[in-house]
């Protein structure tokens, strides 16, 4: 692909991202399930179980917030597939595809618009957590890296959502399927409780789950502590997710549209 074609693809991608951002602005309720739901979990777990699980709620909150960030970003990345599926089934894509624009532009646009969604979700979560008493123990640089890493994590795993979005027929089916995938993925980790009391088979998975490793990396960045190990593990997962789901997603996309 020549640089001119790439440039056009990006430019068209930005135009379509602008559309995605307009849509978020017009339907802010689209952000509800990725902001309200994690906040409900945050409040519920902190005040209901925090004392029992970590001795006191403040200590639990410090442990929980990085984990909820991972959960939040996974749920936010689910929207990409739902949105693309909606566009395809509503015929909006037919118009785009009948125009002389880069074929990849709609995908690029959807993913670029997702970054805005991710930033909003993480910011809302951090503000609420701060009000509840969460404090970054390290520094602004570490916080920035943590936020950037979380967004990168979302961008890597959103290809799974795009893949499912292109595979299933209706937006509702995509939503249901992603929920079924993400729920066990987030709960089968150390986001809410340590893995030591889990049965062997679950502990074996939870210890190497991308959610656990990413949550640990964020804990290291925000609370201090080991970073290198979990960060390496997370990066491996992220590369693996892209290596597996990006080709699958683009293949399914080409077949579907």
């Amino acid at each position, binding site marked *: 692909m020549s640089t001119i074609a790439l440039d056009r693809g990006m430019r068209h991608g930005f135009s379509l991202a*602008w559309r995605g951002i307009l849509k978020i602005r017009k339907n802010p309720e689209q952000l509800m399930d990725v902001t309200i739901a994690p906040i409900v979990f945050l409040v519920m777990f902190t005040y209901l179980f925090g004392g029992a699980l970590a001795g006191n709620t403040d200590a639990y909150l410090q442990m929980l917030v990085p984990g909820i960030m991972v959960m939040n970003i996974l749920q936010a990345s689910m929207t990409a597939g739902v949105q693309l599926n909606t566009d395809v089934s509503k015929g909006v894509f037919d*118009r785009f595809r009948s125009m002389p*624009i880069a074929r990849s532009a709609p995908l690029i646009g959807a993913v670029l618009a997702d970054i805005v969604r991710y930033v909003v979700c993480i910011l809302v979560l951090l503000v609420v957590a701060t009000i509840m008493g969460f404090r970054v123990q390290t520094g602004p640089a570490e916080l920035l890296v943590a936020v950037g890493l979380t967004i990168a994590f979302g961008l890597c795993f959103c290809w799974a959502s795009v893949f499912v979005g292109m595979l299933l027929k209706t937006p509702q089916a995509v939503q249901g399927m992603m929920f079924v995938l993400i729920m066990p993925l987030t709960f089968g980790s150390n986001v809410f409780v340590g893995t030591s009391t889990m049965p062997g088979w679950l502990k074996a998975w939870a210890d190497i789950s991308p959610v656990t490793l990413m949550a640990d990396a964020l804990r290291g960045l925000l609370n201090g502590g080991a970073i290198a190990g979990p960060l390496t593990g997370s990066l491996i997962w992220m590369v693996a997710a892209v290596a597996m789901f990006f080709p699958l997603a683009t293949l399914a996309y080409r077949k579907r549209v």
Partner: protein
Amino acid sequence: MSLAIRAEGLVKHYGDTKALDGVDLEVPEGKVVGVLGPNGAGKTTAVRVLATLLRPDAGHATVGGHDVVKDPRAVRSLIGLTGQYASVDEDLSGTENLVLLARLLDYSRAGARARAAELLEQFELTDAAGRAAKTYSGGMRRRLDLAASLVGNPSVLYLDEPTTGLDPHARNEVWAVVRKLVANGVTVLLTTQYLEEADQLADTITVFDHGRVVAQGRPDELKRRVGGQTLQVRPTSLRDLDAVQRILGDLTGVRPTRDEDTGLLTAPVNDPVLLSTLVRKLDDAGITADELALRLPSLDEVFLALTGKQTEGSLA
């Protein structure tokens, strides 16, 4: 005359279903060709192939001389597409929808705004320009959809069932727009289930059934092909129905069909002179008629004769 669209032997399967089973289609530049057929006849599939959205399994097609499979980009720069279901973004306003498409067609920011305003003006949507498309009426949405397909000044326009689900007023508005486009030299491929629509807009009609072309020609040619003309009489008084039926039967040598509810008698004729004879005979018998006409069969009747089934979306 050069051809804007030429398709030869198009085949498209969906599993065991043959959506297209060897379709040939020619659309001369600047003309309107109506593709007529029931649901599932393959009309939309044909449009999707010609709009580069779908690869045919066999056969080939060119638009403006460019092959739809080998050079889709060149085809896309010539065409505009209005889908069966209005494919504008319902969350965005009229202006935003058009600006987005103009930007995708490489208009500058200012140029895109100007083009959007111009089209909104042309389609009488200026007052609603800032409102989300989902608040538009059916007719307004279809006009916006048409405007959206025209952003890039296409020379070939596909209208896939442009008035399905519209009320008669909104339908007339869409027809007026299409006529204006054709007057400006745009080539139009129109699919419709409505015979009246094809009759009103199309220069030639292609009838699809089961993925095949079953008839092709000018509307009046198609009507003539199916049979001669029809004589229709409705006596003023229902009491005269038997007498008129007898007279009409004697004249045409065919037993007229009789509609008891409307009091309408219909008989096929081959000789147009029979009309004046009938008038004389009715006069002699002292019978007056509310309705007396010699006409070509309706396209509904043509369609029935060609495909053996009623049109589902008949306007009648």
